[in-house]
């Protein structure tokens, strides 16, 4: 039975936004913790830590997100765990976000002038205080815009989780399309919702970028 695409379908799709948001939030929160660890390892004195973090970043930047999702999904099966799209998608996207945020934040940490670290060191501040009181607050300001930029990529990236059966915005669209056979209207609606999520974030990122540029040239 094919039913016409109507308001109830739009509402169904709209309701799925929360799963896209939930997955994005999990990946972003997990990725923030992982990314900080990666960024600190990447800028550490110990060479093995730097190398390890570099390999992690290269691995996740050098393979498609879809393959990472597949590997997490089917890897769970091999490990004897029950197949669980939620867990697989959260894991893959968290690792993915860790690598990308790690690389963004490494750049921000390295953009803080070396004199800052030297002055803090000369004052007797040790690694933890040096990072938390001097380096990271400055790196954070530099990283806000690219971080929000990556968040936009991440939200759009969650759509790939539909392929391993995670029912978020895109997959809900597919389900509605199977019932209505109105692909242009359905996926047009889905795309419009993504746009509504991402556009304000992009605007915000741009605004913060100009504000930061102004603050640093003052």
């Amino acid at each position, binding site marked *: 039975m094919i039913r016409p695409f109507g308001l109830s379908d739009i509402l169904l799709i709209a309701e799925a936004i929360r799963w896209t948001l939930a997955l994005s939030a999990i990946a972003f929160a997990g990725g923030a913790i992982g990314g900080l660890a990666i960024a600190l390892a990447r800028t550490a004195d110990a060479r093995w830590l730097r190398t390890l973090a570099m390999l992690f970043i290269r691995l996740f930047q050098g393979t498609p997100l879809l393959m990472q999702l597949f590997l997490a999904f089917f890897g769970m099966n091999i490990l004897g765990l029950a197949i669980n799209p939620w867990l697989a998608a959260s894991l893959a996207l968290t690792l993915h976000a860790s690598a990308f945020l790690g690389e963004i934040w490494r750049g921000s940490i390295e953009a803080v002038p070396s004199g800052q670290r030297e002055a803090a*060191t000369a*004052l*007797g*501040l040790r690694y933890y205080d040096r990072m938390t*009181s001097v380096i990271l607050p400055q790196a954070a300001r530099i990283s806000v815009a690219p971080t929000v930029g990556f968040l936009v990529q991440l939200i759009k990236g969650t759509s790939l989780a539909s392929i391993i059966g995670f029912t978020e915005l895109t997959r809900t669209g597919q389900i509605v399309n199977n019932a209505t056979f109105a692909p242009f209207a359905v996926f047009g609606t889905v795309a419009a919702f993504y746009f509504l999520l991402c556009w304000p974030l992009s605007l915000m990122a741009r605004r913060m970028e100009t504000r930061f540029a102004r603050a640093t040239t003052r």
Partner: protein
Amino acid sequence: MSATPTPADEIAIRMAGINKWYGGYHALRDVNLEVRRGERIVICGPSGSGKSTLIRAINQLEAVQEGQIVVDGIELTAGGHNVDEVRRDVGMVFQQFNLFPHLTILQNCVLAPMKVRGTPRAEAEATARRYLERVRIPEQADKYPAQLSGGQQQRVAIARALCMNPRIMLFDEPTSALDPEMVKEVLDTMIDLAGEGMTMICVTHEMGFARAVADRVIFMDQGQIIEEAAPDTFFDAPRHERTRAFLQQIH
């Protein structure tokens, strides 16, 4: 070394047989230096001669591959945590000020005393205000570094270092990045400090300052200490050809 050995407890810094390489580049060659407590030393020399490397070895901003460094009776061994002890006792002022731009002047001054020495905030702030008064900018305490002139920023940097109550102060070309009209205010602050008996090592080409406060002027070239003498002897009767050539250049 000097003919009459100085008693150990009067020595602030002892560097013996220091060699330092950056990769294959030999930056310090067999440097020996003894600084007595309360002594004021000026180091000068051409660009790239190793002046910064030498004073940065004292608080281990640069590690050296060979030689012995003893600061305030504490021997620095590579990787040892006595480095922390030394850094607490040695203040440093940089050419580029290096104030923390995200913190106010007062916050800049209390950060290390609170985090490193565990001084309570109220006490740290009182100390900071006292030192800001001494460098004659008490009214700027709540501003951010970017709101201050270069000369003011450098005086804050001096105050910030003093807040740790150091026994030794290192200065690496503290006036080189300043507009000419601001050089004097910073030098005056340093002269005040010298008058109070602080042990000071200053890399600077300010010859007036050297004549006014230095006990000894050291000339470095190509990673070596070429000549050292009291300022009048150093400037009026340099022994070494390279010293003469250098002094001619900067006059």
